[in-house]
């Protein structure tokens, strides 16, 4: 019996892991794994909707973790890249991982393994960039607030970093592209969505929801940015390589240029 199917899941990581679980359990020939938001029916294959099941997802998570912790991290990071067809690639990767006794996650001469590693790497790079480029502004409600627009969905990945660093202040980082944010309330981090009016990024116009000293500190920082530059070594190309232009509008030290 031909059991080839397209699996449709809700777009969450748990949903994806559930799909993997179902595919293994029901011995499905997976044609593709698609998000319900962008699903596309195949001409010759059936599609099945997968309902996210946390217990099943957890079993896959633990199973991979038992095989290799590094592989698990790569899978999670690569998934966050939201790149096209990443689910099928990951599914093949996971099958390989379980099929072989030895540690295939370090077989860099295998195309699938190498691709996953590279995807995970670029997500890791974006995560690191966001840890660097978030610029908090202090609101009158005493919340340090920042907006970002990362290439990949990195908010879940940076949460821990900010939690352990700013343990004694309220903060909120909002992804304007994906329309959700993470808010830390001194005890834990929760996911929030806001109805943002206007741009809170790097506008020269002042916004009265921030304390007045906020702009003085931004000015000090912009001044520091200028004075620490050595003019006889100027290198705009290198500068733009390290701080790509697409992030400038969220960096207060680049306010004048944007």
């Amino acid at each position, binding site marked *: 019996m031909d059991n080839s199917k397209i699996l449709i899941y809700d777009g969450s990581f748990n949903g994806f892991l559930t799909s993997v679980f179902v595919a293994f359990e029901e011995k499905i020939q997976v044609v593709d794994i698609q998000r319900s938001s962008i699903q596309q029916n195949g001409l010759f294959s059936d599609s099945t909707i997968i309902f996210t099941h946390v217990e099943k997802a957890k079993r896959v998570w633990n199973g991979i973790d038992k095989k290799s912790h590094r592989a698990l991290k790569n899978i999670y990071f690569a998934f966050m890249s939201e790149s096209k067809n990443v689910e099928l690639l990951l599914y093949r990767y996971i099958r390989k991982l379980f099929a072989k006794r030895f540690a295939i996650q*370090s077989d860099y001469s295998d195309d699938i393994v190498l691709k996953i590693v590279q995807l995970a790497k670029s997500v890791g790079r974006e995560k690191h960039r966001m840890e660097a480029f978030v610029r908090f502004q202090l609101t009158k409600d005493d919340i340090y607030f920042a907006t970002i627009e990362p290439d990949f969905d990195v908010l879940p990945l940076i949460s821990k970093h900010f939690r352990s660093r700013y343990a004694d202040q309220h903060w909120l980082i909002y992804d304007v592209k994906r329309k959700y944010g993470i808010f830390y309330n001194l005890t834990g981090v929760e996911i929030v969505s806001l109805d943002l009016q206007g741009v809170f990024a790097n506008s020269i116009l002042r916004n009265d929801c921030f304390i007045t000293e906020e702009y003085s500190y931004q000015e000090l920082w912009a001044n520091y940015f200028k004075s620490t530059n050595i003019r006889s070594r100027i290198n705009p190309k*290198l500068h733009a390589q390290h*701080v790509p232009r697409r992030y400038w509008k969220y960096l207060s030290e680049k306010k004048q240029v944007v």
Partner: protein
Amino acid sequence: MQFERIKQKLNILADAAKYDVSCSSSGSKRTNTNKGLGDSSGMGICHSYSEDGRCISLLKVLLTNYCIFDCAYCVSRRSNDIERAAFKIQEIVDLTINFYRRNYIEGLFLSSGIFKSPDYTMERLVSVAKKLRTEENFNGYIHLKSIPGASEELMKEAGLYADRISVNIEVPTVSGLKLLAPEKKHEDFIKPMQKIRNEILRYQEEKKIIKSTPKYAPAGQSTQMIIGATGETDKDIMYSADYYYKKYGMKRVYYSGYVPVAEDKRLPPMGSSVPMLRENRLYQTDWLLRFYGFRVAELLNKNHPNLDIDVDPKLGWALRNLSYFPVDINRADKIVLARVPGLGIQSIHKIISARRFRKLNWEHLKKIGVALNRAKYFIVCDTQGWKHQDLDASKIKGLILQNSSGKFRDKFSTQLRLFN
């Protein structure tokens, strides 16, 4: 806070501090356990990059640029007619905390001109760090400069609050120091280094027995040398760097191309260009010594007192030692692979992992990310035929230069360019 006044001071004192190149914020192990502010347990983060392309990870300022010394290479020298300023201790603390809370910086890099006496100055640097740690509950990164000639007690205290301590040797040769900074003695630099080294070792020993021993300068110490101010050779620089790495367990030695800051007949004239390419080659050599298993005498010696300008130091070494090659990618040890031009630590790691599964060929190497344009003359792999065995060194060098482009290439090309 009086922002206008602070702004003026910040401009003057950040401007004077910028010639210190060290800006690393990694290597410390200070976790945020007390629900305080900051955490410096992970890797360092560059929060921005200035327009010269250098990382900005710390608030790098001087406490003051008043100085009783008159070192020719220094912008804050006594005889230089510049604007002077000084921060109050609380002002630096407030700046650091407010910048840190906004995620601008990883911490503070605090240096100072020497006013009144070395001890008086050092005491103030230490009290900034102490205040940050004890009053503000700050776990971010603190890099303190130790002032040449400061007392041992103060050095000892500094390490209890700072993550990293550094003394800049600035001039790599003793004779150069006499020429440019006649008021400073070589021992004044060496003594604090030795003291910190001893303390780090002592605390490490104690930690083995008593777990609650406090941290002492967990990110170690570093130093800096100015390049191209006194006509020293690359050999002079790298031999003394090697000495500091071995003798004092330095975490880093920084090389800073001399930026002319004042007219002085002992120094390169104002407006002469910064030796950035040379600086780059020195850093490459530094990495070869620390991570690639090279000994300094292999790269620089009596016959080769200076590094090649047109090729990187590893390629230069390989061209002088062709008998060492070809290396078999599928068999060679890690330490042998590390000597192949075009192979970096990352690719070596990937090669060693991947070759357990199958024999690697050119295609695999290319996908892994090896710089084959350089490596292919020095390796054999599963693809048949090592085509380059009859080439001599100058031929290989010519081919590599012809088939690649480097960021500094236009600086040394002897060929005239057709279009400019």
